[in-house]
């Protein structure tokens, strides 16, 4: 399964591959210095006593060399190095762009008991039946997330450990989160392996992409805050309220309007924190509606236009548009339907039969 080099470094304790040592060294160098002890502990490969003795004061190169030395003493193989890579990417998961994929069951089967060992076996078998030179590793985390790391090679090259693909899967859910791999030619094989291993029939890419993996999970697992109409009063939550103006002689002119905007905003967005998305893209394929004077532009063709909203935290920004006075409340449903429809890439076509503006279509 793993491609090992033939040479080994004859250090004290055991032989470790040069490529493995280099990979571990480079992975440790990527980590910010303050996170190195916690990361190595989460890795769980090096003995705790030696980890405590590890000195993090000198330069990172020295720390990396010390870690490589420890790994050599404990005979680390590519498997442990891959697990370290998984732990690094799990800690810094927001550095990658994640795409959500949805799987559907071909038959209405009963919910099966998820067997992790069988899942791993089926997944590896499916991929290795097409491609021998791959490195596949699994790690299960506390929140039931299974991280799969695949390093791809070809028929004649070893797997490229530095450009691995990551898949995050929660058992008994029909969603998988794949971090964009540069090499898209291996994607069909990966999707095939996923549906075979998890007993689904089909997989499709959703139009939902973001850096923040937890927010993507919140959106598709319906964990984000939605408002529902209920008779049961929810307990009051502490909210950031502007300090009460104690002087009764000062009144706000547009107090009722502000309250209305606040109420409408709360109905649409809810009380809690919004999932974190970075952009929303709308591709317009509608006709150009112009004033009668501008007859140059041909009204037969559709006006191709791409509108992209980007922000460090898009949904919070949209939520604060109306209270800041920059947009009318309620906001356009095209913007507010993003978490509910679980997509941030839209195509807007003409509404058939009506000459008005277009509708959202999948």
């Amino acid at each position, binding site marked *: 399964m793993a491609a090992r080099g033939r040479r080994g470094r004859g250090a004290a304790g055991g032989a470790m591959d040069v490529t493995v040592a280099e990979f571990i060294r480079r992975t440790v160098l990527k980590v910010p210095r303050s996170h190195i002890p916690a990361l190595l502990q989460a890795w769980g490969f090096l003995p705790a006593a030696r980890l405590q003795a590890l000195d993090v004061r000198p330069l990172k190169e020295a720390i990396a060399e010390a870690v490589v030395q420890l790994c050599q003493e404990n005979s680390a193989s590519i498997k442990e190095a891959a697990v370290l890579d998984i732990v690094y990417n799990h800690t810094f998961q927001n550095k990658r762009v994640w795409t959500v994929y949805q799987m559907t069951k071909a038959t209405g089967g009963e919910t099966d008991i998820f067997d992790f060992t069988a899942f791993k076996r089926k997944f590896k078998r499916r991929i290795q039946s097409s491609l021998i030179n791959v490195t596949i590793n699994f790690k299960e985390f506390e929140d039931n997330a299974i991280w799969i790391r695949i390093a791809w090679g070809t028929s004649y090259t070893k797997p490229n450990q530095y450009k691995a693909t990551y898949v995050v899967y929660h058992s008994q859910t029909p969603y998988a989160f794949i971090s964009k791999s540069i090499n898209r030619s291996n994607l069909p094989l990966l999707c095939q392996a996923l549906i075979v291993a998890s007993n689904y029939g089909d997989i499709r890419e959703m139009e939902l992409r973001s850096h923040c993996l937890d927010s993507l999970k919140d959106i598709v697992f319906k964990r984000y805050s939605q408002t529902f109409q209920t*008779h049961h009063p929810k307990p009051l939550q502490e909210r950031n309220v502007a300090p009460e103006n104690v002087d009764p002689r000062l009144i706000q002119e547009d107090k009722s309007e502000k309250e209305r905007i606040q109420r409408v905003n709360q109905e649409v967005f809810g009380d809690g924190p919004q999932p974190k998305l970075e952009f929303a893209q709308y591709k317009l394929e509608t006709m150009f509606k112009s004033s009668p004077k501008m007859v140059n532009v041909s009204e037969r063709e559709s006006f191709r236009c791409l509108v992209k909203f980007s922000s460090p935290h898009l949904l919070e920004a949209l939520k604060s548009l109306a209270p800041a006075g920059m947009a009318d409340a309620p906001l356009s449903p095209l913007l507010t339907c993003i978490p509910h429809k679980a997509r941030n890439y839209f195509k807007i076509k003409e509404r058939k039969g009506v000459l008005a503006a277009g509708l959202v279509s999948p």
Partner: protein
Amino acid sequence: MEPSRAYLSPPSFLPACLPGVLSRLEKLEARARALALKQEEAEQQQRQEVARLRARIKQLRRRRDELKGKVSLQQAALGRREEATSSGAEPVPTARVQERALLQWKVETVEAMLRVFYLTGISGKLTERGVCFCLSTAYDGNYLDSYYLDIVITQPVRIHRHSVPIFIPLKRIAAKYLQTDVRCFLATLSAHLNAYVGRKYQADYLQKHFSAFLGGHWQKNSLYNMLAFNYDVTTESSTFPFRVKLLYGDLDRSLPTEASVSCKEDVPASLLEKAATHSSLFMNMALHKAFDTFRKAAETPDNTE
């Protein structure tokens, strides 16, 4: 060098350009003094203006308070006149008061009824397009999360939004019951949610409060319908690790349908018996209660279990 400006004529050893500089400085000084005087005057005027405006504000406030007082007096007089003109000053206020008290009681009863509905676990509120149901869950005397379903009453009835976790088989239950029997649909969904929440509660409680007994190698899944872990069994001589695998085949029950307890081969026969009893214990009792009995047994000095 003109001799006319004698008081300013410089001594002879200074160069010729200096008298011009000194006169320039004098001019600047005079200008600065004039400006300072002007500024002081302006400030004084401003202070006077502010004082005048303050006095005016006070005056206007007094006038406003007077007018307010007059208005309130008039309103009170109007109210009294109204009451006096209606038939009998006495019965009318009490009738109004009675009506209000009745209304208040009605409102309170309705609110209490709604609260009772919430506590039963399934409650709902009519919306413009349909109903919004709230399924609240509880286990072992604790109220846990609430899940919501926004249902639109069209033909066919469909679920518009919901906050049910993704691993609960909502689609399957809806396909089976939603169109035909809404009550059954809600009951089944509520049973599933309560069972899931109960299983999760047991597992979390176990990990939190009985960590001394547990040995690690936790295996679970999102629905919490498969749980496997190691735990220690102590006898008078030593401690033996047992491994238990619990399978919850019925998703609407919080007790396992299959419990297999295993241990290593080279253990005394009494422990094998113990494994069997533990197995049946897990099948019939909640996890944390089972471990509670273990703990009690371990604490009592009597070791013949």
